[in-house]
């Protein structure tokens, strides 16, 4: 994953970081599962690099992919019973409704720290370890200057 200018700046602030380190610099690739996301924004407040962003729009189509047994699934089931047609495009969410919002994730700002994974109440954000080869690169990048080679 190439880093954006902001990502490079953040990676550069890490001790001993070198340029050319991928976004998995801190250990994991972040994968989002939209169907589980409730749009609460906890990942946004947990994210140290601003890779997660909550916007003011909600796409009702996202509701319909929610698994049964969850609150979202119940909402989708109720809506499906009375729907006259497939949900049409996204609409703006009123101010005080703080969930039901789209979460935008920019992979090139992500430092791979996994804070969003721990913050997510529904398990919608998953961290997968980076491949071993990348880890070695990351380890070299993270080692304090002058220690190890």
């Amino acid at each position, binding site marked *: 994953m190439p880093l954006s200018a902001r990502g490079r700046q953040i990676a550069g602030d890490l001790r001993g970081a070198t340029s050319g380190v991928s976004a998995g610099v801190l250990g994991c690739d972040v994968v989002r599962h939209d169907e589980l996301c409730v749009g609460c924004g906890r990942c946004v407040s947990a994210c140290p690099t601003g890779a997660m962003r909550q916007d003011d729009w909600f796409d009702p189509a996202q509701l319909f992919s929610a698994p049964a047994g969850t609150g979202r699934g119940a909402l989708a*089931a109720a809506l499906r019973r*009375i729907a006259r047609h497939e949900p049409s*495009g996204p609409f703006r969410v009123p101010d005080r409704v703080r969930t039901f919002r789209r979460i935008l994730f920019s992979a090139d700002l992500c430092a791979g720290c996994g804070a969003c994974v721990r913050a997510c109440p529904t398990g919608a954000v998953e961290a997968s370890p980076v491949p071993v080869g990348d880890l070695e690169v990351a380890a070299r990048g993270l080692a304090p200057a002058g220690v190890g080679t």
Partner: protein
Amino acid sequence: MNVPVVAEAEPTAPAVAATEVRVAQVRVAQVRVPEISAAGVPVSEVIADAADGERSIVAFLCRECAYSAADAAGNARTSLPPTIRTIMVPCTGRVSPLHLLAALAEGADGVYVAGCLEGQCHHRVGNFHALDRVAFVRRLLRSVGVEPERAAMFTMSAADTPRFVATARGMDATISQLPRLPRS
């Protein structure tokens, strides 16, 4: 209590079979999938007594304001539209989009939330939250081709019985002009 067809609500029950709901079990913070119920009866049964072809409207009334107004209307023997079914909630801030949509899906033709006047919520901001949630539900309904007028929010003071009666009749008039909801 002489309010016509007013059932005391218990909308904060945890996700257990509605017939087993007891007041002692209510833990608002731990609700997972809220089941709408009035006095332990699921909302589908609350509105089941509607005759064929008759509309039913579920009203969520704030305990502090709108319910008092409804109670006073009942004490004054004011006639309300027979379509109105009321459910008391501790605060309109408790009403979630799922409550409104589940009521519509279970057979109601319209839902409305009646709470305290702006700035006079007993829990400070509950009615503002309800206002935005109803707005959200209206946009959700419009996005699937359902008339947004089926969900509404009204505010009134506890003493404002005429306004309660007027909103109930107004809602009844609005809903009676809409076609029946498709239910699959």
